[in-house]
């Protein structure tokens, strides 16, 4: 059997209060922090998904997004490195340019595993689309990610079938130079796009499998907003109980990750034997059919992320994060020079895989990795030791209010890892939390800065988002 073995989502710490965007708007939408992008959020979802799974056993990574950090440079490779997968034997691909790229990647992964190309492929969908300031989309779009491990090894959810429709239309789009999302008149988009095309994929899949809508336990449907999502459910003949709730008003439409995040929520709740349909939309539609074989221990879901996040009531700060306004952040010259590509390459194990060195003689864990042990002075005798999955204790810290930081204050932390090793790094997603020496922090993959066309990624720490083992 081939199917889904594990899944995990990611919702950013911050959710923008829509009331501060425009008077009268209600609800929230998840917004990535200034140091996040689709790649870092995807890595976070991947970490959740690979919980308790040997990273070396994953032999493929497909990454879906419409907001890749680079147009020419594969996000799946950076994600695989950050996730410390075995990149020496790994099938990678980026799936882009459509909000259904997540489900398309999932189908492609399924097909590759069926064909025997790989045994386990991690599929990540992540998006951080920027709505134009003042547009209706400002209420609907959100940032987030989901990841699924498609596997021939111990899958819990069987993938039964898929059906796709391709459809040529300009309803919601960006050119290769647009930063913000464009859209045509809503009536046109709905009548000739969403309402016409998505049902074609759903009925195509059901007919192919000799099923009716009543045979579905749950239907996960992409929707452009809360009202139209509910309307689609009715048009398809779904009962309210059959329709997996949308994420509007709390997370929003997370683009390529939208259907995938809702699917994860549905799977979290699903009992064995349930049949689930997931359908996405974007220049066509994908419909996928799943059957739950065995109940799985749920991963931290939407609710857990919401409870562990915070509400941002500062629209200007959000606009600054997205580069939609220029804001004084203090004068610090010289400006940050471009990082060196050869240094980034040379330091990838240290900075992206977050490897410490573990001395082969005395076992001391040291970060940044040392060639000469700082304790016993053994030379070139160490093994790599992954820190990204370790929790740590806050040894000391400071909150810097003078150094420009788009999410002030800049928090510098010195942390002691559980299992050994100490380092200093930035903290992010502090929110309103009071910090204290001795508190537990966890690692999160973030963007340090972007300059002269180079994104410089790093690991930061953050207060733990979920208590207990995740």
């Amino acid at each position, binding site marked *: 059997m081939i199917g889904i073995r594990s899944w995990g989502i990611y919702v950013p710490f911050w959710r923008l209060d829509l009331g501060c965007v425009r008077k009268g708007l209600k609800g929230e939408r998840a917004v990535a922090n200034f140091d996040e992008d689709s790649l870092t959020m995807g890595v976070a979802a991947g970490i959740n998904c690979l919980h308790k799974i040997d990273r070396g056993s994953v032999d493929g990574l497909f990454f879906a997004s419409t907001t890749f950090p680079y147009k020419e440079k594969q996000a799946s490779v950076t994600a695989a490195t950050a996730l410390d997968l075995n990149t020496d034997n790994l099938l990678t691909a980026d799936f882009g340019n459509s909000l259904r790229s997540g489900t398309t990647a999932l189908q492609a992964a399924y097909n590759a595993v069926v064909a025997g190309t790989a045994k386990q492929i991690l599929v990540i969908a992540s998006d951080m689309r920027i709505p134009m300031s003042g547009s209706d989309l400002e209420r609907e779009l959100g940032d987030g990610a989901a990841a699924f491990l498609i596997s021939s090894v111990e899958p819990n959810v069987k993938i039964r079938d898929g059906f796709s429709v391709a459809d040529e239309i300009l309803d919601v789009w960006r050119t290769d130079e647009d930063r913000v999302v464009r859209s045509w008149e809503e009536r046109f988009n709905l009548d000739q796009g969403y309402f016409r095309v998505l049902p074609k994929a759903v009925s195509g899949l059901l007919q192919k499998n000799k099923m009716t809508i009543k045979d579905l336990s749950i239907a996960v449907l992409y929707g452009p907003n809360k009202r139209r999502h509910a309307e689609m459910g009715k048009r398809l003949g779904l009962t309210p109980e059959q329709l997996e709730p949308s994420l509007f008003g709390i997370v929003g439409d997370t683009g390529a990750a939208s259907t995938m995040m809702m699917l994860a929520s549905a799977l979290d709740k699903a009992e064995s034997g349930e049949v689930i349909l997931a359908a996405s939309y974007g220049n066509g539609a994908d419909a996928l059919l799943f059957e739950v074989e065995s109940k799985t221990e749920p991963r931290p879901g939407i609710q857990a992320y919401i409870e562990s996040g915070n509400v941002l009531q500062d629209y200007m700060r959000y606009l600054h994060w997205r580069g939609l306004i220029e804001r004084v952040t203090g004068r610090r010259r010289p400006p940050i020079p471009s990082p060196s590509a050869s240094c980034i390459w040379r330091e990838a194990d240290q900075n992206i895989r977050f490897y410490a060195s573990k001395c082969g003689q005395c076992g001391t864990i040291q970060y940044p990795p040392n060639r000469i042990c700082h304790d016993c002075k053994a030379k070139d005798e160490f093994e790599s030791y992954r820190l990204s999955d370790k929790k740590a204790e806050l040894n000391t810290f400071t909150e810097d209010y003078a150094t420009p930081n788009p999410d002030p204050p800049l928090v510098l932390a010195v942390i002691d890892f559980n299992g050994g*090793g100490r380092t200093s790094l930035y903290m992010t997603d502090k929110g309103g939390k009071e910090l204290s*020496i001795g508190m537990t922090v966890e690692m999160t993959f973030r963007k340090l800065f972007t300059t002269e066309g180079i994104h410089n990624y790093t690991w930061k720490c953050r207060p733990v988002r979920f208590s207990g083992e995740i």
Partner: protein
Amino acid sequence: MESIKDRVAIIGMGCTKFGEHWDKSFYDLVIDSCYQAFDDAGIEPSDVQAAWIGTNNGYHRGTGLIPLHLDNIPITRVENACATGTDAMRNAAYAVAAGIYDIVLVSGVEKTKDYGFSGLPVSPPSYPEMAMSQTRPAVPMPSQFALMANKYFHHYGIDPKEGKRAMAKISVKNHHNGTLNPLAHMRREVTIEKVLKAPMIAKPLGLLDCCGVSDGAAAVILTRPEIAEKYRDDYILIKGLGVACGDEYAQTRPEFDWTHWKENIVASGRAYEEAGITNPREQVDVAEVHDCFTINELVTYEDLGFSQRGKAIEDIDSGFFELDGGLPVNPDGGLKSFGHPIGASGIRMVYEIYLQLRGKAGPRQVSDAKVGLIHNIGGWPGAFTSAIGIFGRREH
């Protein structure tokens, strides 16, 4: 290893006013400080046989001394972060002690006010690894020292408010001393309340816990004692020098507790040994320490053996380090009043000791100062260069 004690004499010094010298270039500061030193020593520029220039972000190699037109003598630039000035002097002193040169010049200079912003760059361009790679987070200086302040208070169970008040007292003391010094940049009294209410920079360090950024230069002429006698009677002698460099232990070794800097202990230990000092609290009469941030002066009291471990605050409260206390520290106003033109600060400290040991410090004169110490530290936690110099009167 041999000791430097009594092998090198200071026969002349110069020091510019520190401040925002919008009308002066790096070269102007060099000329003003060095010619003051030549005049003070009673030598001609042509008497200088070799020169060292200490500058952190200034001119590369010896080019900072070009305006002196020193006729092809060897000039070496020393860069050792905020300890640059002291380390330039140390290298020059060793060359003199070795007998290679008879009279040398050490110039410490920094021109910081042309950067276009207040404060120092997050990662100065002279840190090649960071400037080239830029792959790792840069950390501003106030934050580096704030890490220690938080942990020091936590370690000794000191109420953070109490700790902040103790740091404020250091600021108040140094600012007071600075009012007595015409060369200081910021010459105004501050109160504890004012320090406590100053804008937060890096918690718990407020604006008045941090030193300013200034332009400035200082220069010193070194020779051997037998030659010094020809120039003046009241030359002073180097009694001990110590430099120690850390390997980033603070942020890499979990056993480090943030209550001290090892570099200070090693560097001062070496200097004390050379100078024959076994009880610094009693034997040092006056000290200039690196008060870039008030917490650093506080911890330095303990690292240098002026206060017992964890007891610095008791000595602060008793006024032990004030001008009329048992061991006046930073009588010239320190970095708090002078600001910190990086390469100049160490030589500026020597200048104050040079005045104090010769009874020339005017209203801030420490009575009967025979032994003076300077402490100059640069870098970041666990990766500091700590430089110590101990000086004595000729007869001492």
